[in-house]
C-alpha cells in the first residue's frame, strides 16, 4: 500500500511531540473524518528552528506530518508558507490515491501554525472528503 519512504516516516516518525510555549500552533482535521494533526513551531529571526507534530490518523497522516516537520525546519517563515499538501506527498514519493485527501493535511496544519505565529487569519480549505475508489 505505502512505499518505503512513507513506511519509514510512519515507523520512525521525526519530531513527534508538542513544543512547550510554541511561537505558533495549528490543528486541522476532525475526529469525524478520522484525521487530526497538530503542529507547533518555534521561530527565531524569521526562521523556523523547531517544529513538532502530534497526529491522530492513519499511516499517511502520520507520515505526512513527520515529513512536513522535516521539510520545514531551517526554512524561513515565508518559504514555509509555500509548502503545499501536494509537495509533502511528492516528497514522500507519492501516496495511494485513496489517501490524497483527508490524510494529507500536514501542510495545512503547518500553515495554520504559521498564521497563528503571524497573527493572520487562516481559513481551512474545503477538502473533498469523498475518498477515491479503492485501488486494487
Amino acid at each position: 500500500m505505502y512505499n518505503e519512504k512513507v513506511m519509514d516516516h510512519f515507523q520512525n516518525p521525526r519530531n513527534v511531540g508538542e513544543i512547550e510555549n510554541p511561537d505558533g500552533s495549528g490543528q486541522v482535521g476532525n475526529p469525524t473524518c478520522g484525521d487530526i494533526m497538530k503542529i507547533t513551531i518555534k521561530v527565531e529571526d524569521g526562521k523556523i528552528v523547531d517544529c513538532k507534530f502530534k497526529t491522530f490518523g492513519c499511516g499517511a497522516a502520520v507520515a505526512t506530518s513527520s515529513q512536513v516537520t522535516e521539510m520545514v525546519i531551517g526554512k524561513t517563515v515565508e518559504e514555509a508558507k509555500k509548502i503545499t499538501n501536494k509537495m509533502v506527498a511528492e516528497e514522500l514519493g507519492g501516496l495511494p490515491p485513496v489517501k490524497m485527501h483527508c490524510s494529507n493535511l500536514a501542510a495545512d496544519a503547518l500553515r495554520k501554525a504559521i498564521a497563528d505565529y503571524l497573527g493572520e487569519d487562516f481559513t481551512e480549505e474545503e477538502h473533498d472528503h469523498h475518498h477515491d475508489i479503492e485501488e486494487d
Partner: protein
Amino acid sequence: MRRVYLDNSATTPTRPEVVEAMLPFFTEHFGNPSSVHSFGRDVSKYITESREQVAKLIGAKDSSEIIFTSGGTEADNLAIIGIALAQKNKGNHIITTQIEHHGVLHTCEYLKKYHGVEVTYLPVNEYGQICLQDLENAITDKTILITIMFANNEIGTIQPVHEIGNIARTKGVLFHTDAVQAIGSIPVNVQEMKIDMLSLSGHKFNGPKGVGALYVRKGVKLVPHMHGGAQERKRRGSTHNTTGIIGLGKAAELAMADLDEKQKKLTVLRDKLIKGIEERVPEIILNGHPTERLPQNVNVCFKYIEGESLLLNLDLQGIGASSGSACTSGSLDPSHVLLAIGLSHEVAHGSLRLTLGIYNTEEEIDYVLEVLPGVVEKLRQMSPLYNATK
C-alpha cells in the same frame, strides 16, 4: 519474524484436506457436471455429495434446498433481490438491520433505487442486538422479507435468531439470514430456527474462496440473480464451479465434525485475549455482546488512536488484524456497525478486530498481548487527543 494471523473473519486459510479433495477435479475429473457423457457424470455425483454435506451442516431437510453461489455476497443478493422480484405483487417492504454486511445493505439500497422497494433498518442496542418488539412493530401487510444476519462480522454479536424465526413464521413473512460468520463457528439449524433462506460462504470456515451457498426452503420461489443456463434447477446459471463446490462440501463435512471442539477452543482463546487486553491496556471499550458472541471475535476500541495506524504497527510485528476505521475501508465514515452501537466517530476510528481461527494457538495470544500494549502506548503518545485529556 513471527507471524500471527488474527483476521479469520476476513478470510481463512483453506484446510489442506480441502485442497486435496479439490485437486482431482482440476485435471482428472474436469468435466461439466451437466453433460451427458461420463466425463460429466463422473463429477456430478460428487457435486451431489457436496450438496448433501452443506445441507447437513445447516440442518436442511433436503439437499435440493442448497443453491451453490460464488460466495456470501451472491447468496445475499440472490435471496433478497430474488424474493423482492418474486413477491413484488404481494408487497414491497423489506425489514433489515443497521448492522448488516454490505452484501445485504447495498442490495437493499439497489432495490430501493431501482425497484421501489421500501426498507426498514432496525436499530440495535449498545451490544448490537435488535429489539424483537421493534421487529414486530415494523411488519406491515406489505412486508415480504425479513433479512437479519445471524452473527455480526465486526463485533461478533449473535442475534436472537430463534425468536426472529418464530415471529417471521407467525406473521407469514419470509426470513433470510446472512449466516456467513456463524456457519462453522456455532450450531445452526434452519429447520429448528425457522429460517427460510440462509447465506454461507466457504472461505470463512476454511473452505475455498469464490464459492458459497444459499439455502432456500422447499416451496420458496425466487427469481434468479444469475441469468443463464439451467444449472441449479434453473435458479443459478453458469457452469458449476466444480472444484469450489467440492471444496465447500469437504469444508462443510470437516466443520460439522469439528464444531464442538472448535467452538470450545476458540472461546478459550477469545476470553484469554479479551481478559489480557483489559488487564494491560487502559481506556478501552469492548465492542459487541459480552456473552452472545461468536467464539472467534474480539473487537476493542482503543481511545485516542486510529485503527489503520494500529494495524500497520501490528503488521510490522507480524500480526494480521483488521479495523472498522474509515481509512481501512476506503469510505469516509468509520464502520456503520460501530456507529450503530452508539460509538462516537472518534472512538469508532480506534477499533481493532482480532478474529480467531482453527490454527491459532495460546502462544500466539501471548505474543499479541506482549506486543499490543506497547503499540497502543506509542500511538497514544503521538495523539493530540490523548494529550488533551491527560
